[in-house]
């Protein structure tokens, strides 16, 4: 917890304080890596268990008071829906979706649930210029619609393409995304609605550290049933929601190109030059100005001296 605050304070500090020509760069190294709030919660999703019943989608819809879907939640023709060649994704009417993936060489398809992964260092949060996002100590990444300007940078930044925007509204648009049932359940220590609704216990809710241990145990005890990787352990700097899969993750259309470090690390190169430009440029260009106009000044001086004598 302290670490995150340090790190974010540093970044905020470096930009604000640099205006006052002070830049505490040394702090950067102290907070180079944030490994998450201790005891923060997470969910381990085991793809081998999911049968695609869509109970989680129904539960989410009810818990979050989302609008009625086009098709009821036990209509499985949605698995064939494609938009621009892409399977269903989260949008302003659904915070979570389950998609079917036919895997070559596997008798049965796999189902993959998508929702916010609640990163430890969320890209949406670090890219937001009005601080609309908060990573709570419980592990949820929540959003405050009352300060959002609607710039949609969070949607650009999210490596998992999760935040959705209410394009349909002119007067009350906002970002719509899974909030880990933060206000209704997570603060009370309860599992999110989707987890509780799942008949197959595809999702295991618990402390992130315990989940990692559980995930490793499942892999160790059933080495043939899983690939040896927990997606989300390090992806995007670590996420609260993590996945086990019986087949390589790219076959279930996980983005395996997501870096194993926070997205923020890619932006730091630029952030670090800001205080430098702010402090060096004035001196540099004033200096150049003085040098470039020296001749002129000397001539002027000569002239005025000449006229005096």
């Amino acid at each position, binding site marked *: 917890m302290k670490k995150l605050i340090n790190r974010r304070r540093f970044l905020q500090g470096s930009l604000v304080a640099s205006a006052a020509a002070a830049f505490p760069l040394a702090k950067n190294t102290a907070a180079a890596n944030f490994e998450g709030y201790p005891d923060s*919660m997470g969910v381990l999703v085991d793809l*081998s*268990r999911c*049968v*695609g*019943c*869509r109970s989680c989608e*129904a*539960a989410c*819809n*009810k818990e979050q008071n989302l609008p*009625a*879907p086009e*098709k*009821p*939640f*036990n*209509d*499985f*023709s949605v*698995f064939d829906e494609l938009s621009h060649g892409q399977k269903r994704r989260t949008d302003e009417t659904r915070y979570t979706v389950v998609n*079917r993936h036919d895997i070559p060489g596997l*008798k*049965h*398809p796999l189902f993959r649930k998508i929702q916010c992964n609640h990163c430890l260092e969320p890209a949406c949060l670090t890219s937001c210029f009005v601080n609309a996002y908060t990573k709570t100590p419980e592990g949820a990444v929540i959003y405050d619609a009352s300060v959002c300007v609607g710039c949609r940078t969070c949607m650009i930044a999210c490596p998992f393409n999760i935040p959705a925007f209410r394009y349909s509204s002119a007067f009350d648009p906002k970002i719509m995304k899974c909030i880990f049932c933060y206000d209704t359940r997570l603060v009370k*220590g*309860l*599992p999110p609605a989707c*987890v*509780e609704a*799942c*008949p*197959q*216990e595809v999702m*295991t*809710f*618990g*402390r992130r550290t*315990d989940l990692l*241990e*559980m995930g490793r*145990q*499942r892999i160790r*005890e*059933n080495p*043939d*049933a899983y690939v040896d990787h927990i997606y989300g352990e390090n992806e995007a700097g670590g996420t609260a929601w993590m996945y086990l899969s*019986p087949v390589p993750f790219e076959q279930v259309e996980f983005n395996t190109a997501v870096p194993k470090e926070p997205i923020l690390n890619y932006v730091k190169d630029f952030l670090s030059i800001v205080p430098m430009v702010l402090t060096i440029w004035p001196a540099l260009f004033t200096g150049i100005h003085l040098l470039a106009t020296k001749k002129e000044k000397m001539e002027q001086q000569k002239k005025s001296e000449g006229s005096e004598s």
Partner: protein
Amino acid sequence: MKAPHRTLLVAVALLLAGTSPGHGQAMDEYDAPTTVTIDSLSELYEPVIFSHVRHTKLARCKDCHHHTTGHQDMNPNCVRCHLHSPESQTVSCKDCHTRQQFYPEQVSELGNPNIYHIDKPGLKGAYHLNCIPCHVEKNAPSHCEGCHAMTDAGREFFRLTDKTPGTAKDKDSRVR
């Protein structure tokens, strides 16, 4: 689901070969109830009247009850500790698998260093994880309403109330 499948195959193979199961002091199918009404979770679905006697003819005790009936489990992970575990006092699913899962009690329990079974499913998970693979394998009903009929609350939950329900074909098509 590969591991349960394999256990199941082994069990079925043994059954067909006609070998006698387990140890002498183990429970046998005559000690078991004829039917079990599974209703502790019924809200979106009606209770299930589970014909225990019918299932004992299709599978062996340990296929569902692990080692608790005194029959030795074949899963190498379990055998490591339970090779000689005797029959236990309680064999009912709900005696070990909690109705509520992932509530603060269960989460904080994981902090106890003496617990080995850190990955024990809740009651609902235990039922479905146990039943569905075998039902799929044996071409028994494996979609939701094949075992339990939906209640009005369920119809509302799945947003069927204002629309015509999806056809049975749709439902079956997604079951693997």
